[in-house]
């Protein structure tokens, strides 16, 4: 088969992290690299410590793994901020506003750049807490996919991240399709 079955209904977590790696992030070089990188996605370098530089996340991670830079975490990847966020998330019925690729970005940085994240353990726990809290809300949201929904025709899921959407996508899309069949909305549309 041209496309493995696992890839048909949604993007895989690996693919989503791959997409997140296209984002730009600030680094502080720890070793000078005199070469300029004339990449297809732009020109980067030369890198001269301690001058900050913006590079794609994948490049930042390559540099990081070779001990050539430290990564400046995004402002929201911060223990204090995330603690407040977790509280807000728990208090709110809907999803609070987060960067579209927050979870995948956090995963990547937590995996490969822990020493650049102050209060790393706390940050990791808050991320986990926020993820679970939002995950529970998402699962609970499945009950909104009802026959009545079809007089409206859509379900609004603002503020969910790319990773979060793809986690619920197979169930939600299937439920939506099945409800559509029951509601008869599809039959009238086909006229």
């Amino acid at each position, binding site marked *: 088969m041209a496309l493995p079955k696992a890839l048909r209904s949604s993007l895989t977590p690996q693919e989503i992290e791959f997409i997140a790696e296209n984002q730009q992030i600030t680094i502080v070089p720890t070793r000078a690299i005199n070469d300029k990188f004339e990449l297809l996605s732009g020109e980067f370098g030369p890198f001269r410590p301690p001058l900050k530089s913006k590079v794609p996340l994948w490049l930042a991670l390559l540099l990081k793994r070779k001990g050539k830079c430290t990564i400046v975490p995004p402002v929201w990847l911060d223990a204090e901020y995330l603690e407040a966020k977790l509280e807000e998330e728990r208090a709110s019925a809907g999803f609070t506003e987060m960067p579209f690729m*927050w979870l995948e970005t956090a995963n990547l940085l937590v995996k490969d750049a822990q020493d650049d994240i102050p209060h790393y353990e706390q940050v990791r726990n808050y991320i986990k807490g926020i993820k679970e809290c939002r995950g529970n809300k998402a699962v609970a949201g499945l009950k909104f996919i009802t026959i009545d929904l079809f007089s409206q025709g859509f379900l*609004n899921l603002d503020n969910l991240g790319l990773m979060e959407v793809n986690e619920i996508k197979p169930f939600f899309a299937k439920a939506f399709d099945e409800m559509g069949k029951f509601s008869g909305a599809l039959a009238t549309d086909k006229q």
Partner: protein
Amino acid sequence: MLANTDTHDTTDTTDTDDIQLLTQAWINERGAPEILAFEGQVIDRLLELLRAQEEHVEELSNDDANDIDFVRSVYLHEADRVKFVLQSYLRTRLFKIEQKTLAILKSPEYQACLSESELAYAQRFNQIVQETYEKSFLLDSLPPSLQSMDDPNIVGAPDLNQAVFFRTKVDFGDHLLPNGETLDLSKNKIYLLRYNTIKALLKNGAIELI
């Protein structure tokens, strides 16, 4: 997705380059139930860039002997990333072509969405399937009235009612749905709804499938 993620510190490049266009096309293709227009020009440009890049990497001087391997590996890594997206994009399309061969070959619009080699693949694939069916059961076991492959149930058109998730890329104002409801399409809204109600919006680039 690439152009407007609001991640405060992690911002994206503002100009839309071909890598972004291809990545977007790949993600949309993965999310859409039907085959979308082939991004031939983007791919041609990227392949040309990749070729030039390869030459450039070979010519990289050895001024800085410590870093040359690393510098090379960065170029190769980027090339691999582009090739990965390209491969997944083409495979996703081949999958759709194999699944919906007849529907595609019967529709001039779908045919216009294919590249030359995809069209050739679809025709050849169809020919092989047809021959196999004829040899194995079609002509021997079925009465002539049931031998036609034109029946809509056999053609199996893509299910355009399939539910998809999408996100608005730009402020697009209110959008009227066929059922009279309005959809608020300001930037970064996320919805789950049926593909054919938003098909036109996808085509004009106002939204991305996610």
